[in-house]
């Protein structure tokens, strides 16, 4: 059933295209704004049913595909002798599962949330498109196919950023676009060289470097790989190209920022894993300047991200900065090139995904309900929305890495990986930075909890409990549960990840 790979990609994408076409047709009909609004209201329920059905069916198909064994499908020649190739391995399955969960959560959440933003049709259109593209990204079987989906990911996710059409959003979208393009082209630079010096660009654990060709050209090849790490790192918000992230994520509607921040940013990581561990091979990088530069950048980003988040006043921006910092945990874990580091990285990918999706969705609730965007406005909400505030607290703790949450496990592995790496300075300096950043994380997340439950000052009048709509609350709660659960029962997940790790590193 290898065609399922293609079906999984096309199903959501085509549904997205249909929605977009219909949205466009609405515009062309030259109706007045009032008519449009009325029509939108009328078609809301069928739309939600359609999107919900597509999401559910796709997710089912995708998950079935992903966990029913490895398979691959070669479609046609894309360029040169490189085919458009889809193939599935454990890493792909791992990521595609994350995508599915993220999309289901954010999708159902949006049914309520988007009713106040408007333009639902086009939002869901693009939303589904990105879904399909991301699935394609997970399933891509070689570097060029992956690059193809990577570019598409940028292009299709851009409309999510500029959804509300304000000037600020448009500028942010453009910034997002240009940074991403910059990164993509950096990566493309590397791909050109890898094509020359690898026997194949297909993904295979351990890589394909053709050492006879390489000998004598190590310098340029290292530069090329570094360009790819930097390039894909843009999506992951790695220094020095992180500036787009705090601009672009917050202006998007909250469910979109959730997936942008928690899922799409991870695909920078995914691409780096594919490049470094599946095409180049970690052996080639070990002990080179590229590794050190990569580690340095990752650590710097971890620290800088946290610092900036600490100083930030706008809640969603703060979360975005936090993403910058947290994704670089993952990158750091990868950069040490040890088994533990790799495991920690993947585990943190998962943990951070649950946490950050949850956090952004929570932020969305604040905006949806009260229009609060600034941190200082979030006072006394613990009484109003106890469930939400509690789940927020758990998410925050998980991000900080308090045992027994998921964040703790990942940090444990990251630190272990770093200490085992045998690189003198970094092996102990890395964990110190991680720890420092964890403190800062506590510093920027916990005050909201504290202010939420203990607003202080005047004793308030009776506050009505008004937790949000179930469709909004449920995803958050589930995500919180997962974030905690993976810390309580880490073995299931660590085992799975170790299988990937073992394939790649040992």
């Amino acid at each position, binding site marked *: 059933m290898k065609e399922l790979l293609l079906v999984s990609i096309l199903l959501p994408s085509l549904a997205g295209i249909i929605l977009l076409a219909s949205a466009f047709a609405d515009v062309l009909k030259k109706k007045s704004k009032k008519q449009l609004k009325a029509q939108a209201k009328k078609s809301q329920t069928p739309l939600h049913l359609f999107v919900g059905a597509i999401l559910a069916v796709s997710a089912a198909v995708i998950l079935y595909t992903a966990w029913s064994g490895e398979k691959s499908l070669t479609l046609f020649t894309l*360029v040169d002798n490189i085919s458009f190739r889809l193939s599935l391995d454990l890493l792909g399955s791992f990521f595609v599962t994350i995508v599915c969960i993220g999309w289901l959560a954010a999708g159902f959440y949006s049914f309520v949330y988007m009713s106040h933003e408007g333009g639902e049709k086009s939002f869901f259109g693009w939303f589904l498109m990105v879904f399909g593209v991301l699935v394609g990204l997970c399933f891509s079987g070689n570097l060029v196919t992956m690059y193809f989906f990577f570019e598409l990911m940028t*292009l299709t996710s851009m409309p999510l950023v500029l959804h509300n059409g304000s000037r600020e959003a448009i500028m942010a*979208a*453009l910034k997002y676009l240009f940074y991403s393009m910059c990164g993509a082209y950096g990566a*493309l*630079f590397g791909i050109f060289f890898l*094509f020359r010096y690898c026997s194949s660009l297909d993904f295979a654990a351990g890589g394909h470097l053709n050492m006879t060709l390489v000998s004598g050209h190590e310098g340029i090849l290292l530069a090329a790989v570094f360009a790819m790490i930097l390039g894909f790192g843009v999506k992951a918000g790695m220094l020095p190209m992180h500036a787009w992230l705090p601009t672009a994520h917050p202006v998007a509607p909250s469910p979109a920022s959730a997936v942008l921040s928690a899922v799409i940013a991870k695909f920078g990581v995914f691409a780096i894993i594919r490049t470094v561990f599946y095409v180049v091979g970690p052996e080639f990088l070990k002990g080179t300047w590229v590794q050190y530069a990569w580690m340095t950048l990752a650590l710097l980003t971890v620290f800088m991200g946290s610092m900036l988040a600490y100083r930030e006043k706008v809640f969603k921006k703060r979360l975005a900065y936090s993403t910058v910092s947290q994704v670089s945990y993952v990158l750091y874990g990868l950069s040490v090139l040890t088994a533990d580091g790799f495991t920690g990285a993947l585990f943190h990918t998962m943990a951070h995904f649950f946490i950050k999706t949850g956090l952004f969705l929570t932020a969305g609730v604040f905006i949806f309900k009260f229009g609060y965007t600034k941190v200082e406005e979030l006072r006394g909400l613990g009484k109003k929305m106890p469930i939400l505030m509690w789940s927020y607290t758990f998410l925050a703790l998980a991000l900080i890495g308090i045992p027994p949450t998921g964040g703790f496990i990942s940090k444990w592995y990251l630190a272990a990986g770093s200490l085992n790496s045998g690189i003198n300075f970094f092996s102990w300096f890395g964990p110190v930075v991680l720890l420092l950043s964890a403190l800062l994380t506590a510093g920027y997340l916990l005050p909201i909890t504290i202010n939420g439950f203990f607003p202080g000052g005047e004793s308030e009048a009776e506050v009505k409990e008004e937790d949000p709509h179930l469709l909004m609350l449920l995803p958050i709660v589930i995500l919180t549960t997962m974030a905690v659960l993976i810390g309580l029962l880490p073995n299931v997940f660590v085992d799975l990840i170790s299988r990937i790790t073992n394939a790649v590193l040992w």
Partner: protein
Amino acid sequence: MSEWFLLLVVLIPLVAAVLSPMLPFKKRNSRLFFLEAAVILNSILVFAVLLNRPDASLTVFRFTGNLSITLKLDGVGGLYAGLVAILWPLALLYSFEYMKHEHNEVSFFLFYVFTYGVTLGVAMAENILTMYFFFEMLSLITLPLVMHTRTREAVLASRTYLYYMLGGAAFAFIGMIFILTYGRTSSFVPGGVLDLTKLAGRENLIAIVFVLCFCGFSVKTAMWPFSSWLPKAGVAPTPVTALLHAVAVVNTGAFAALRVTYFSFGPELIRGTWAQKLLMGLIVFTIVYGCSRAVKETHFKRRLAWSTVSNLSYILFGIILLSQEGLTAACAHMVFHSFMKICAFFCAGAVIYKTGRNYIHELDGLGRKMPVVFITFTISSLALMAVPGLCGFISKWYLAKAAVLSENPMAYVGIVALLISALLTAIYMLTIVVRAFFPGKDFDYESIRDVQDPNWLMIVPLVIFVIVMFVFGLHSTPVVKLLEQIAAASVR
């Protein structure tokens, strides 16, 4: 087929063009129909000749003993002729509609169709003199098209145009004389014709002359520092800027540079000399320079023109890599860029035709009113940005591959330049797209209420171009195989 067909395909457009103002057509449409029929017929003939390529060459006219106007069709020439033959009927179709809002269309169509024949002449030139002959003719015959509107701006632009063109030809002339004097023959022979026994020990001279000649021909390709004519020439009616200043004229420069490099001087002689380094430096700089100017430019067509400046240097970059792979890539970009850029220009033209708007800040919101035009524009932008799946990616891939294979540090810089240029392309193209589709919350659509897509004469070419971009982007193997064969035959 008989080699006389070579002459025939050059002559049909010339004759049709000259006849068009003379024949007593009663209605506008019948004249246009006549021209379109002639052009389509000619294109069909071109393809017939391409498929049954005559081996013999045809000497049309002899200046002196060894100087003659001779036509012959070989691989590279065939490629260029085929490209031109595809584009001309479509562009003509488009211009029928477009020229409705310009004056003097009779003379416009005269020169427009005439240029077709001349361009084919360049493609089918057998020796350097023939090429030079058609090259000069092309400069002159397109001059009336540049100054078509006869405004002061157009006249100034056409002056600049002419100075650059004739100046370039003057320097190319040096190369031609050099080949005539020191070549074994003046014909184009793969691998070059220079007689090394006569030139032993004068490598520097070869390099100097090569640089002069290459630059001379590249003036038409708007290589820096000879690039400023191209944006200025944007005052011409859009069919001209689209077909001539994005394809026919400028590619002729690249084609001529290709000819002298691979068929007259010979890549072996130039590889590794300072001439290659110098030219590559200029070209790489142009790639970035053109894009940067495009980003700065606020006039729609001029922005596209600057983009052309940059993209044409991609072709030159492929050529100056002096390898079979480089040549393949150059040919690929020549073909693909033509489709991408002509499409983008036609979109700009459609906007001008429908709304009279020339500047980018005036394009707000038009995307929703002219969806076909702007969707095609978006696709051509993406293609120019080298998004995989569209043809721009293919040519960029081969260019970079050739550069990597050359193991020349300068070529590595070239790759970086290609990518920087792609990024800048994203900036200057997508800002337009975003403006057109997302004008902002408060945009008043009432101001452009009556704007709509143009009619089928304009839409059909656009759609065809888009289809071509996708087909080449997704299924490039056959065309690239063909190009590789051509390149292999051109590099011995």
